[in-house]
């Protein structure tokens, strides 16, 4: 069974916690977790990938063991979260990698792909959503809130 390493790096003055496994020279896979969770959700998946891939699973800012700065210091938008994770990939040396995105990780990861398509080798989206049409009726009660957020 491959061992998982638990690490922390500083990215733009924020502490980002991440799980890492696999050989550094193996094809790289970045795992982006969903809401309201953390890289912990990949605890059983990482060992199944680590013998073939170099796997990294960060806790997004505000989640898990990564820093959670107050909203006055960090805007928790997908753009901002993606910017931080983009910098994170540079700090940990993920120059080219496949993206596995789940739920909340999808709008984060898709932004990385839009910004740097040349760095993304594959996208595996599991219950990830890119458009409002992908939201089920269960989201209807908060649709006015979403509309207000779009206008702000």
């Amino acid at each position, binding site marked *: 069974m491959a061992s998982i390493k638990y690490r922390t790096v500083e990215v733009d003055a924020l502490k980002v916690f991440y799980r890492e496994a696999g050989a550094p020279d193996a094809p790289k*896979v970045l795992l982006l977790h*969903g809401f309201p969770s953390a890289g912990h959700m990949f605890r059983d*998946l990482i060992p*199944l*990938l680590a013998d073939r*891939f170099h796997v990294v699973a960060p806790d997004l800012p505000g989640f898990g063991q990564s820093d959670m700065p107050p909203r006055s210091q960090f805007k928790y938008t997908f753009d901002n979260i993606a910017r931080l994770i983009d910098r994170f990939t540079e700090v940990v040396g993920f120059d080219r990698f496949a993206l596995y995105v*789940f739920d909340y990780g999808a709008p984060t990861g898709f932004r990385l792909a839009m910004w740097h398509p040349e760095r993304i080798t*594959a996208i*595996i989206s599991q219950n990830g959503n890119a458009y409002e049409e992908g939201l089920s009726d269960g989201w209807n009660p908060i649709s006015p809130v979403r509309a207000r957020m779009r206008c702000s």
Partner: protein
Amino acid sequence: MADRMKARVYSHSVDHMPLVTVPAIVVDPILEAVHERLSITQQNR
């Protein structure tokens, strides 16, 4: 959306989080996607 993108779709009768409940199912699409990309890259060399 996946159809419009011509993405390869895998459907299983699982809950929202198969990466936790049945992680072995999640491995195959990742393996296939990455290895397919690697083989395309090698063919183009």
